[in-house]
């Protein structure tokens, strides 16, 4: 049945595997996926653990509805203590790995210890074994997948692996499956590398039981039609997240040349339509009708003729606006290279942009860069820098340590040019004109982030009654809500609401493009209990889903508190407050975040969560969410 998938405890040092059932009680408290992972992290990762030591625990999971007719039920979640931030490390990827894990009989993997030599884990229909990965070392993730399939003589095997960046312990290495599905943020690939774990291969032919098959198919068909037959749906199908760039850049919401401008003029070549010259079709993750990535061939340069997939909006910033480049071919090449080496595109782009600004200011010189001229808009240098980071060469070796460690090593006041939260670099969006987005990145448990809290629909200037309809369900909210994204009123509630919304989809294993992330029309708390009922027969109310999300989110928060994070870490760098936006439409020009109002937003945000003004979770809230006795070691 959908609930009989097991949890496997895998010790790489001892070479042991233990399998257990997941108690129904855990489902009722955490659903699955990121929720149960949050529980496992809090319970299994000792306080103060070295993120790169054998005591760190790598959690891999498929959410409660993965592999079922829940639509876009493709997501694999990966969690550990982050080697980048020291806080919760968490990332989430599409593709086909998660569903295959469930067909093989597993929902959760808890991986501890460190293998003596390069190893990969082979999960095959209920069995788990350790295999030698010596021959796989140095390979890129898609090559690893191919090599494992050849070795085990099965073309349907799905592999999650790391590239050389993970092997080299670059602190923001990704885990990857297929050509571009990346668990990108917070260095989960680095944790794999530290455990000498090159890959996890999985193959399954077992059932996921569906309790009401006829009804769920009918429900799913309506569900899909409701998502794709919207303006958002059709745009995503055609352009993917690349569509965002044209809008944000023309408005002035893009971070350019690290943080020096908020619009890149004459950058039409970075807009989504350009993909048509390179693309020969689109690809979908498991059971998804939005198929938001392109299959493309690089046309020019050293990598001309290479087939790759993507890119996302993130890469238009990373290898475009942030570094002042205007070539779509460079974006496509950069996107290919980060996936090839196994790097987080967002972190790479932001760190390169930071290094460029340091070079401009004379803080680093040709001596540090191995002779590379880190000049804005130099496409070749940007691409070369990706390789330098992955291979830890020259300045790349410094950047490979992530923002805070790199700044410490470089010194000379380099830290004040960093754009990060909790030691994780910010997306190339400029949040100075948008307080809700700014608060969202500041409070994210995994550090600066747009996929854990961003009220992106705030950018649509939705009328107040529409906002109210969305944001006062399932938990009543009668505070202020404003359709002006430059306002501060009501924004803390929107951030709180989105945190719960994204936590819930991450527990279920559904893609965020199928909830209220980029489209206000998409399903959320009302629809999820209906889907869960049809698939598993478990009864939840929308309010209970919300409470589960709160419980899991609080465990992430408790983990961070245990690791020493406080209110001062829920912060933006000074530049957000001190440097007003120089560019863009009149409505966003001259904007910076107001310190006093930001502080007030943070107070309100903590109050919504039931946290005290220091950002600590008080007993009352722990009791309300049943967290008083954590860690409780039920799993």
């Amino acid at each position, binding site marked *: 049945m959908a609930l009989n998938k097991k949890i496997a405890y895998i010790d790489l040092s001892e070479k042991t595997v233990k399998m257990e059932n997941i108690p129904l009680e855990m489902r009722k408290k955490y659903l699955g996926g990121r929720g149960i992972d949050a529980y496992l992290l809090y319970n299994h990762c000792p306080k103060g653990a070295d993120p790169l030591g054998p005591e760190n625990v790598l959690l891999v999971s498929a959410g409660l509805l993965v592999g079922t007719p829940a639509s876009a039920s493709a997501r694999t979640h990966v969690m550990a203590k982050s080697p980048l931030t020291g806080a919760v490390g968490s990332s989430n990827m599409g593709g086909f790995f998660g569903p295959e894990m469930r067909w093989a009989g597993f929902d959760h993997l808890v991986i501890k210890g460190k293998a003596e030599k390069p190893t990969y884990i082979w999960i095959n229909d209920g069995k788990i074994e350790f295999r030698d990965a010596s021959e796989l070392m140095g390979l890129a993730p*898609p090559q690893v997948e191919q090599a494992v399939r050849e070795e085990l003589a099965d073309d349907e095997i799905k592999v999650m692996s790391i590239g050389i960046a993970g092997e080299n312990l670059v602190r923001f290495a990704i885990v990857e499956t297929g050509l571009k599905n990346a668990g990108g943020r917070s260095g989960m690939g680095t944790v794999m590398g530290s455990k000498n774990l090159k890959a996890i291969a999985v193959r399954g032919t077992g*059932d996921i*039981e569906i309790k009401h098959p006829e009804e769920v198919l009918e429900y799913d068909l309506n569900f899909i039609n409701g998502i794709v037959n919207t303006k958002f749906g059709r745009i995503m199908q055609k352009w993917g997240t690349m569509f965002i760039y044209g809008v944000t850049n023309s408005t002035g919401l893009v971070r350019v040349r690290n943080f020096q401008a908020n619009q890149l003029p004459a950058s039409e070549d970075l807009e989504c339509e350009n993909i048509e010259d390179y693309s020969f079709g689109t690809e979908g993750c*498991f059971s998804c009708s939005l198929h938001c990535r392109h299959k493309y061939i690089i046309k020019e340069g050293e990598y001309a003729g290479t087939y790759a997939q993507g890119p996302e909006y993130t890469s238009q910033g990373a290898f475009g606006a942030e570094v002042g480049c205007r070539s779509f071919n460079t974006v496509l090449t950069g996107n290919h290279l980060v996936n090839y080496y196994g790097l987080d595109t967002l972190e790479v782009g932001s760190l390169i942009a930071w290094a460029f600004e340091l070079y401009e200011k004379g803080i680093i010189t040709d001596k540090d860069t191995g002779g590379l001229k880190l000049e804005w808009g130099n496409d070749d240098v940007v691409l070369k820098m990706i390789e330098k980071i992955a291979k830890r060469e020259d300045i790349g070796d410094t950047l490979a340590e992530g923002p805070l460690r790199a700044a410490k090593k470089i010194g000379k006041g380099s830290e004040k040019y960093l754009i990060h939260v909790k030691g994780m670099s910010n997306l190339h969006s400029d949040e100075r004109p948008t307080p809700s987005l700014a608060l969202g990145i500041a409070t994210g448990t995994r550090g600066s982030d747009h996929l854990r809290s961003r009220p992106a629909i705030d950018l649509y200037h939705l009328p107040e009654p529409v906002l109210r309809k969305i944001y006062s369900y399932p938990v009543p909210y009668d505070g202020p809500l404003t359709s002006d994204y430059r306002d501060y009123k009501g924004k803390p509630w929107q951030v709180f609401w989105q945190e719960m919304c994204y936590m819930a989809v991450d527990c279920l294993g559904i893609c965020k493009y199928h909830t209220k992330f980029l489209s206000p029309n998409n399903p959320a708390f009302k629809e999820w209990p209906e889907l869960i009922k049809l698939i598993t027969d478990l009864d939840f109310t929308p309010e209970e889903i919300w409470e589960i999300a709160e419980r899991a989110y609080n465990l992430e928060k408790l983990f961070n508190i245990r690791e020493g994070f406080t209110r001062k870490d829920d912060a933006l760098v000074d530049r957000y407050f001190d440097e007003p936006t120089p560019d863009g439409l009149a409505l966003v020009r001259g904007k910076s975040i107001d310190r006093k109002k930001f502080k007030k937003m943070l107070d309100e945000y903590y109050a919504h969560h039931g946290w005290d003004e220091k950002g600590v979770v008080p007993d009352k809230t722990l009791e309300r969410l049943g967290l008083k006795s954590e860690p409780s070691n039920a799993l």
Partner: protein
Amino acid sequence: MEKMIIVDSEKCTGCRMCEMVCSVKNEGVSNPARARIAVVKWEADGYYLPMVCQQCEDAPCAAACPVKAISRDTELGRTVVDYDKCIGCRLCVSVCPFGGMGYDTIGRKVIKCDLCGGDPTCVKFCDPGAIQYVDINKANMKRKRAASRNLSELMRKHAP
């Protein structure tokens, strides 16, 4: 009107929703190993093609069946398995040139597409339209038209 399933690799996004909904519809579970359709992928170059029973007129599976369990349903234009006669020898699996006949190791039976009785579930769910259920008489008209467009352009260009 007799209809057939046609697949278009250019439209297939490789999402495998067809496999999942097929297994849910026919077996009440999500399990591509028990689906009647499978998306075959050449991932290195991004080429995907859904493969399913072609409902052959002179079907090798029927010819090979030692107990005559596979017959022709002329109304829907499909080959069907009579499970009362089937002995599960899997000869049909061996001889099918398309891999259209499979064996379900959980249900212990051969499985093939039966067009869901004339309303194929996979087609309903394939939003990109890579799998379509069309009138056989018109199945090739779209390709005829596309080919004729190219041809007519050439002919007009080179007209005397």
